[in-house]
């Protein structure tokens, strides 16, 4: 059998037999299943929810606010004076009260009093007070249907059209973001784990000097290619398990939770681009890891150097909130084209706004060129520093030897 293939097989089997690999691979579907299971159990055991009615006091100094005192589950009870209301509050007869000042109709200000310390007024309370005031102000002025319409939240239905005016297949929204969002996180995690394995493996072989036995049997190229492909295949196995489990979990989730999960869609080209960017991202990180493994005298030192590039994997995730607010920010063009952040950035953007074709083309071209360059430098560094045990070379020395070597 071809020696590269033998190393590939050995590395792949070794990687997928590791406990860490098995746990990380299975943890995604298992956590998803557990989440769905726990939700089903809790909702089954809880039975029908009993809705409690809350009482809120109010003092009407403006006058005329005496109808519509039932707002959903909230019962509004009037007090003649603020002192009476305060007494009821400190006696725990009511949890809170509000005062409608005499000048309310001109200022619009309502004063609310409560014993609770809270970050902000609960939305249900605001809605109840708002609707109580609106109903009382508009009763007799407009038909009841109009009052009901005013009080209802806005029902906005957005339809995305294509450039030809047809209804687009992808309608956007959070349902569209979920799968690419999760996948981009898993992609970053998978690349991080693969890089760690590669550096660890090379470091161990250098420390145990096994690398000398290996290189007396195979060439540097065969050894590195076999390792990179073997660990890449292990990473691919992981990603395939995750991708395969996602539709199953989502189906299960939409039938269990309904609502939001029903709106989940996969963006067009997502699977194709997901695989393309996984493979290219993996190749780039493998080359970077091989380079780090080459200049590090031990596995531990290699692991200390790795965050220089592995941390960059997570940069698009840190900035994801900016993407949601400013999807067209130039920052995203930079993150899409910069090779180390490209795989995760593209996956995230696919879920939010999509990525223009020219950016994809530039991003893929830059990635391919970076892979070739880093691979070339990594193999060179590997040959030069392979047998230098002990001290790690300084940056200046590495640049000098790479130039002259």
């Amino acid at each position, binding site marked *: 059998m071809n020696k590269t293939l033998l190393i590939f097989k050995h590395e792949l089997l070794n990687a997928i037999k590791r406990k860490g690999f098995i746990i990380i691979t299975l943890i995604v579907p298992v956590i998803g299943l557990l989440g769905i299971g726990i939700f089903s159990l809790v909702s089954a055991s809880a039975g029908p929810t009993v809705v409690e009615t809350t009482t809120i006091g109010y003092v009407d100094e403006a006058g005329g606010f005496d109808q519509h005192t039932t707002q959903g589950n909230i019962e509004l009870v009037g007090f003649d004076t603020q002192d009476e209301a305060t007494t009821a509050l400190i006696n725990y007869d009511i949890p809170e009260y509000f005062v409608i000042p005499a000048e309310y109709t001109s200022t619009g200000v309502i004063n609310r009093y409560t014993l609770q310390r809270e970050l902000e007024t609960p939305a249900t309370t605001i809605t109840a007070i708002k609707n109580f005031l609106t109903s009382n102000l508009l009763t007799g002025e407009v038909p009841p249907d109009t009052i009901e319409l005013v009080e209802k939240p806005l029902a906005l239905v957005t339809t995305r059209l294509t450039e030809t005016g047809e209804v687009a297949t992808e309608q956007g929204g959070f349902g569209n973001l979920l799968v690419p969002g999760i996948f981009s996180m898993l992609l970053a995690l998978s690349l991080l784990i693969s890089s760690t394995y590669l550096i660890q493996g090379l470091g*161990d072989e250098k420390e*145990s000097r096994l690398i000398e*036995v290996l*290189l*007396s049997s195979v060439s540097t190229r065969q050894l590195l290619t076999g390792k990179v492909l073997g660990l890449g295949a292990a990473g691919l196995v992981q990603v395939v398990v995750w991708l395969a489990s996602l539709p199953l979990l989502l189906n299960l989730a939409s039938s269990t939770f309904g609502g939001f999960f029903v709106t989940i869609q996969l963006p067009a080209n997502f699977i194709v681009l997901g695989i393309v960017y996984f493979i290219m991202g993996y190749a780039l990180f493998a080359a970077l890891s091989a380079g780090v493994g080459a200049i590090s005298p031990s596995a531990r030192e290699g692991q200390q150097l790795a965050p220089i590039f592995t941390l960059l994997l997570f940069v698009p995730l840190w900035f994801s909130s900016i993407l949601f607010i400013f999807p067209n920010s130039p920052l995203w063009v930079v993150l899409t084209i910069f090779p180390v952040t490209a795989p995760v950035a593209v996956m995230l953007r696919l879920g939010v706004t999509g990525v223009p074709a020219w950016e994809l083309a530039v991003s893929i071209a830059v990635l391919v060129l970076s892979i070739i360059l880093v691979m070339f430098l990594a193999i060179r560094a590997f040959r030069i520093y392979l*047998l230098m045990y002990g001290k790690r070379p300084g940056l200046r*020395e590495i640049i000098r030897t790479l130039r002259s070597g």
Partner: protein
Amino acid sequence: MLAVEVNHVVKAFADKVAVDDLSFSVAQGEIFGLIGPNGAGKTTTIRMMMDIIKPDSGEVAILGEKLSEAAKNRLGYLPEERGLYKKLGVLDSIVYLSSLKGMDKPSAMEKAEELLEKTGMSATKSKKVEALSRGMGQIIQFIVTIIHDPQLVVLDEPFAGLDPVNTELLKGMVGELRSQGKAVILSTHQMNQVEELCDRILMVNNGRAVLYGNLPEIKARYRGNSVLLDFEGELGEVPGVTQRRQHKGYIELILDGKTTPQKLLERLVSQGIVINRFEVATPSLNEIFLQEAGKKS
């Protein structure tokens, strides 16, 4: 065809010249000792032979050609500091590493079982490498080095850390390799092993060859003009002897430049002295090593 031919090889690292214009050859069917003090350039020389690093200049031919991928299958190399995949089983380690030498799995398994049996290590075959003692790990690595029936075997300090029983076992197996017509390069500090096993030697110091050739000839070259004598009776005045040194159980007689040991023996016999031991003093390889290493460094 020579097993190894090294011609004017030079290798320099950033701060020093590790190997400086070194030339030597190793024939098939011989055990060749590569000796020298620490940092002399032995391991760098071996790594260049194994194509792990490239020489700056000069040529290395292994089994008659520049080391190719195919020729690597005919090489066995045991590096000085040893290691195997700790988490892998003993038999799996042997089979994987021998597959990289071109062996197919069934023959690797069969040969591995045979060698494990021969070295008394059969009981360890299902164990993980990390469960083995250092000496046991070394035997396993020796098996990995020879399992694919290589034509050239390079052993860097093969006896370091082995107990006397395993040392004898390995020595026997190294001897067998020679009798099978294979070339063995033995790099070691243990001069007694070199004296016992090697046919020819190369001593390097500061990257250069200091001694090179047939071991008995080299020892003869370093032979001093003195004789070790154990006798009965009174020695008295012996012509041609300039100095006497008393040792435990024998006396060392230093001869003048004109008197040969043969001549001295004749004189002693003619004087009627009863001789129990008469030996031309030859320095041990260790003494030659110390002398040469001290001279050049």
